[in-house]
């Protein structure tokens, strides 16, 4: 997993609520047996008409050249639905390291963190402020201090993340490394519980 400390970048706004993982990556693209190459199918059915790459939807932010950056900003309840980690893989593969929303579905949040993508949960008001900014505005996400800043206005908000997850992300460690390191405790548990 790639470490993440501070991200300063422009952002791509998708001002839609309840974006489910079937929209992020439709099921027909889940047939791969590796984690690579999902980025090109991110939001596939919102990017193209009739699944045809030559028919792009000009009004979808990912297709609009004025938007760019490593930060995806989306409406409330992002990532609901299926547990497919392919959603996190496709976001990462498309070049995003941070997703900002005012609410995240649980499984998506875990999946993102397990892949070095930081979900930043902000208040509804702060989210609306971001959506009001023009396309040149940069956001700064400082993981150490747990802050997100709108650079042009200086508005800032604190976001939550568990200390454990923060340390993992700052250092690029993953949970498996940790779990393998406590194997003795796990075996003890099994013995005590007759498993």
């Amino acid at each position: 997993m790639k470490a993440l400390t501070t991200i300063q970048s422009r952002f791509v706004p998708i001002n839609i609520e309840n974006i489910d993982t079937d929209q992020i990556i439709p099921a027909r693209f889940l047939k791969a047996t590796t984690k690579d190459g999902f980025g090109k199918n991110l939001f596939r059915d919102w990017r193209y008409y009739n699944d045809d790459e030559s028919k792009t939807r000009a009004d979808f932010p990912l297709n609009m050249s004025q938007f760019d950056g490593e930060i995806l900003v989306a409406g409330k309840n992002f990532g609901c639905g299926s547990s497919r980690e392919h959603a996190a893989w496709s976001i990462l593969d498309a070049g995003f390291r941070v997703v900002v929303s005012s609410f995240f579905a649980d499984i998506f949040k875990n999946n993102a963190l397990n892949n070095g993508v930081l979900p930043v949960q902000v208040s509804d008001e702060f989210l609306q402020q971001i959506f009001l900014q023009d396309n040149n505005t940069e956001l700064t996400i400082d993981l150490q201090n747990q802050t997100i800043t709108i650079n042009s206005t200086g508005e800032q908000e604190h976001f939550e993340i568990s200390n454990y997850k923060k340390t993992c992300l700052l250092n690029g460690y993953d949970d498996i490394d940790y779990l393998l390191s406590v194997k003795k405790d796990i075996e003890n548990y099994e013995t005590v519980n007759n498993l």
Partner: protein
Amino acid sequence: MSKTLFEKIWEKHIVKTIDDGPSVLYIDRHFIHEVTSPQAFTGLNKRGIKVLRPQQTIATADHNVPTLNQHLPIKEELSRLQVEALKTNCAEHGIELYGLGHPYQGIVHVIGPELGITQPGMTIVCGDSHTSTHGAFGSIAFGIGTSEVEMVFASQCLLQSKPKLMRINVDGKLNNGVVSKDIVLYILSKITASGATGYAVEFAGAAIRSLSMEARMTICNMSIEMGGRCGLIAPDETTFEYIQGKPLAPKGEKWQASLNNWKSLYSDDNTVFDKEYFFNAADIQPMITYGTNPGMGIGVSENIPTTETINENDKSGLAKSLAYMGLQQGVAIKGQKIDYVFIGSCTNSRIEDLRMVASFVKGKKKADDVEVWIVPGSKQVEAQAIKEGIDKIFEEAGFQLRQPGCSACLGMNEDKIPAGKYCISTSNRNFEGRQGAGARTLLASPLTAAAAAITGFVTDVRELLN
């Protein structure tokens, strides 16, 4: 100190807790399938390690499999490769696979319970969000991502933070024509598709208690649609009776010991939940969804809401949703033309669902321009249906009884609903494109779906019952 059902199970499974961080939670049973496991096996192989507890891991092929001619090689190449990869990986790691051709094959959330693998008090995970289904037995069961599948492979544990606790009580008696799917669609319409995010949800109350195990599974299955981390129901005599005698259930002395243990699994009196809801079963009508998330549901005889009448959560999405669905604000949904009927998925593909549909359609015929697919949840369900002659009833009604799998629930195999067509479906998700690009899904109970199959329109099933 009084404890909730969830806490009793949770605490028993904690191996250790990281200061100001998550706990290492021990996992009793790990179900896997072909779609979310290959990358986890690759991860293990890269680390040069094996699955730690293969005997606690159970595999099946369900998401990708065709529902016709399962004895032939899978035509679609990528699907075939995924199913083959599962086979190879299971063989390499010593995992039992109920693959195509096996008499136990089926949708992972159907086979776990029917084989007696799912038991009260367990922690159960699977790389699939509808793992919440298994909570109907009084277990902590939840969906995980592929990295987490790899963690369970490697350590039989997961790092988890304790969720908040919610209880949803449904008391009173159900109306005629109203079944468990209607209960859960009703709850969803009240608390919305994100109403339980961050919570473990316990379902309780007289109306829940009165349900069979299969009906309870339908409710817990859709707790993820409320955003819930998991859904659970305290085990009782109904639960024990269901499990006893199942192929992999405890037997003899072990059965008695398990039973004693299971009887302590309930939320103590006076336990306080972070959030609690109370509903009355008598208020629930046959339900149907009109929009593109499962919280967008109404009584089948009600009108589609307008921007004025809809809840805050779905207000901003209403216009986009209805445009996708080709429906109008404020008009009746009853009478909406239907093109496809799909009765299946881990929500409603068990033998009781098929029996319910069969007893309703017996002697009736489907509408001419409607295509009806019945996809049993497992080989065992299929065999039982044939044994009971349910297949004949379907055949006479013009319904196609297919072979087990996820099928049109997510359209990963050939079973896709064409763009723009309306499908009344007993599955759990009506997201844009879920059943095929451009497909329009209306979620409902097996009874309401069967009624639409007969008339060709969205119908209030009560008008056809006697």
